[in-house]
């Protein structure tokens, strides 16, 4: 299974209701259904990915998150997930607020732009970073709102968001003491589990 899913699944309570924003082919929801007996719904806009969800028996709503999540009731899910999509959103701050409204707790993963490779790429090449992990040019990238671990920490503090767990890993989702020691410099992917007030009912 995907390494980030391995980390995320530990934070999902068995039998809980899970909303996966940008659920892709539904593999995370299928894994959670099969191993944690969750009741899940995914949001996706891509036709092929939606078909892959239906094929797995995963419920999926064809909906563009950039147009809002008004159709979801407050506190209607236990956990709201957003994996590797935050940086592609038009209004990441509003989306996180909506996630906090809909879910008791939330999980967000994003590529850490503060990683030394990104810094070095700009410092030495003077160009926007292009890598196997983020293979886009500046003009065609869907990733329009990059942030760093430090930025997101500040964001959570400013918005009164309680970070329950922060995990930082390399691009193979491997955890290590050295990455934990210098998260903003060494981690490539950041995984945040957060809530507002009462620690997500944990």
């Amino acid at each position, binding site marked *: 299974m995907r390494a980030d899913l391995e980390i995320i699944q530990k934070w999902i309570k068995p039998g809980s209701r899970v909303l996966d924003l940008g659920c892709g082919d539904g593999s995370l929801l299928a894994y959670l259904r099969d191993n944690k007996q969750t009741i899940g719904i995914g949001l996706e806009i891509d036709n092929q990915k939606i078909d892959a969800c*239906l*094929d797995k028996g995963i419920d999926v709503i*064809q909906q563009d998150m950039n147009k809002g999540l008004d*159709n979801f*009731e407050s506190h209607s899910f236990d956990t709201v997930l957003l994996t590797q999509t935050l940086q592609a959103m038009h209004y990441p701050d509003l989306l996180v607020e909506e996630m906090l409204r809909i879910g008791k707790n939330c999980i967000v993963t994003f590529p850490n732009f503060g990683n030394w490779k990104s810094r070095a790429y700009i410092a030495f090449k003077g160009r926007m970073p292009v890598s196997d992990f983020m293979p886009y040019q500046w003009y065609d990238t869907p990733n329009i709102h990059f942030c760093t671990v430090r930025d997101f920490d500040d964001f959570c503090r400013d918005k009164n968001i309680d970070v329950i767990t922060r995990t930082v890993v390399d691009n193979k989702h491997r955890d290590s003491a050295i990455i934990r020691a210098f998260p903003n410099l060494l981690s490539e992917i950041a995984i945040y589990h957060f809530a507002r007030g009462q620690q997500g009912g944990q």
Partner: protein
Amino acid sequence: MPEFLPVDSVGIVSPQRFHFDEPLPLRSGKVIKSYDLMVETYGELNADKSNAILICPALSGDHHAAGYHSMADKKPGWWDVCIGPGKPIDTNHFFVVSLNNLGGCAGSTGPGSINPDTGTWYGPEFPVVTVRDWVNSQARLADRLGVQQWAAVIGGSLGGMQVMRWSISYPERVRHAIMLAVAPKLSAQNIAFNEVARQSITGDPDFHAGRYRDYGTIPKKGLMLARMVGHITYLSDSAMREKFGKATQEIKEASLNLGRDLRAGKLSFGFDVDFQVESYLHYQGERFSETFDANSYLLMTKALDYFDPSVDYDGDLSKAFAKSDCRFLLVSYSTDWRFPPERTQEIVTALLKAGKQVSYLDIEADEGHDAFLLPVPRYMQAMTTYLNRVKQEVAC
């Protein structure tokens, strides 16, 4: 006329008549003492009777949903693109049931039938039937067929409303509810179009207050007008441009002609048909007026107007779904302006609010409301994928 039957056709089919003696109480308070339903079935019911799918017909749909009645038929049933061996509703695996609803005019008890109380044909005396009444009669049909729970109940437009009613009235009898091009209730604009249709029928001098048969006539002109206005709402602007703009495509002109193809190649400077679209509407209206009954048309439009399952729940549709136990699939089509995607999304939102399991697809399609009847590839693919899962669940 098919020279030979396509391999993915259910083939030659014959309708069956089911008679019911138990009186059917209607939402209006009236009662139909006994009635017939015309039914077609395709495929085989499995041993544990778990593979049955009910097809709920739309306004003009009847029991003949797939296959041919004879080799002389020009066209197959109305949803042949979706029903057959290897098609999305796969008759190699599912037992498919399709019917003509009460009040219709294809053999089930309706305004053209004999009223046992008077010994003469019902005509305008046939009681107004609602979606709820239809679903109650369909539940009795399920009893008769020995189907305790449908693997899926499927329908588009007015058919989708019946699917919704099934999920509310008979939660334990539906595994999957599939609704296509549907709205939770009609808008004022929808009702307005229906009223124009009704006025054109009742205003036809040949209507004779619904007793036209006694005068040896039918309100042909009125029915034709009703169908014409209906047909405009079933097509989209883009579908019309495509359908009636062929001349432009052929000569590959840079600019679109907006579907303004001329019928005779030039303007007549009179008030006869000039454009292809007019000729098409005339043809559709005329053909419909020869096959459909005017009183039935009035009843169908009223069933549409009255449909609103939230009325019993303080106007809150999500409460109506509280007991629903099935999984839902809803599909809307981008150019449908009769029931636009936003109308279908109202149902999705209510289902989410009720905490139900629901999938929703917003299909890009140029064909307007009619798209649900047509083989739009993306839509056919999604139906196939979804029903494959249903197939696995009921192991058929």
